[in-house]
């Protein structure tokens, strides 16, 4: 629902992480989206494409990886995949909402094109 503001956060994160003369060399931004973050990858990618127009990041594209929900059972110690938001351990039937994965909203990889000969000589 707030994909545009998340896109602004992506831009801010890139601006903080990279030197200004690297902005135009960003080609791919890879992000992990946990199912629990309520962010739709398709809408996010579309919003990103719109927001970078006219910016130094205009040659970059957003790549998303959806992370399923993984919880830990406090009772039997097993990790289990949460399906249909049922936070109940399939092994021992005890409830658990200790989340190991699924909350992510993280940039995990940035791919930059190295400065070309022409750029270095500008």
């Amino acid at each position, binding site marked *: *629902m*707030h994909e545009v*503001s*998340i896109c602004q*956060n*992506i831009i*801010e*994160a890139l601006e*903080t*992480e990279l030197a200004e003369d690297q902005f135009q060399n960003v*080609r791919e931004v890879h*992000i992990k989206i946990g199912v*629990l*973050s*309520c962010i739709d990858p398709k809408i996010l990618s579309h919003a990103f494409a719109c927001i970078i127009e006219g910016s130094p990041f205009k040659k970059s594209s957003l790549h998303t990886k959806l992370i399923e929900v993984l919880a830990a059972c406090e009772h039997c110690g097993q990790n289990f995949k949460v399906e*249909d*938001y*049922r*936070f*109940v351990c399939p092994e021992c039937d005890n*409830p*658990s*909402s200790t*989340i190991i994965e699924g909350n992510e*909203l*993280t*940039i*995990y*990889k*940035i*791919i*930059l*094109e*190295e*400065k*070309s*000969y*022409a750029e*270095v*000589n500008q």
Partner: protein
Amino acid sequence: MQKLTNKAVGSLRVHDVSLSLLKANDYIAEMIRAEMKEKNILLLNLVSSPGSGKTSLLEETIKRLKDQLNIAVLEGDLETERDAIRIRQHGVQALQIVTHGTCHLEAQMIQQAMPSLNFEGIDILFIENVGNLVCPASYDLGEDIRVTLVSCTEGDDKPKKYPSMFLTTDIMVVTKTDLLPYVPFSVDAVIKDAHEVNSKIKTFVLSALKGDGMNEWCDWLLKKVKEKNEKESIVIT
């Protein structure tokens, strides 16, 4: 003289990073949490769908507790100052945050509003979030306790339909129970579903209009304010 580069045109470099996109919000939320701890103010974040009765619950809570507690309220809405005006009529401090379209409150908005509040003697600060059962789930506002309201007229299937909110909440308040005879809503079913999503959730069942269940809710709030004053950690039981 041309500089030389041994980099081939078009060669790519991969940066492995871990940049959380909500880091800025979480950082500010921790600043708010620290400030509230220093001031001994219990901070509650009220979330729900629009029309679940957040403002009504606050009004009734204020009526019952204003002689015992100093209460302040931050109201979040897309537009208008109506909710803050409603709250002020009960003689407590209320400030409106108008988000102009943003679907949730962010920690930064709370931090910006805080200097405009007089915290002298305040025991409890309620934040009434924007009516939305989706986005506010992702934004920590520095609260001690997150409270999610579900009204009987909304249906008892809300915890399973909006799980991320119920997963991050400490308290579920079932509201408008005076309407239970007229709507197909099962309190047992909503509690069962909420527990399947979040086994630690604590539930209150009440009607702000008729007063049923309000004593239990108010007594619990008084207890939590006391815990905060004694600088104990807040226990959600």
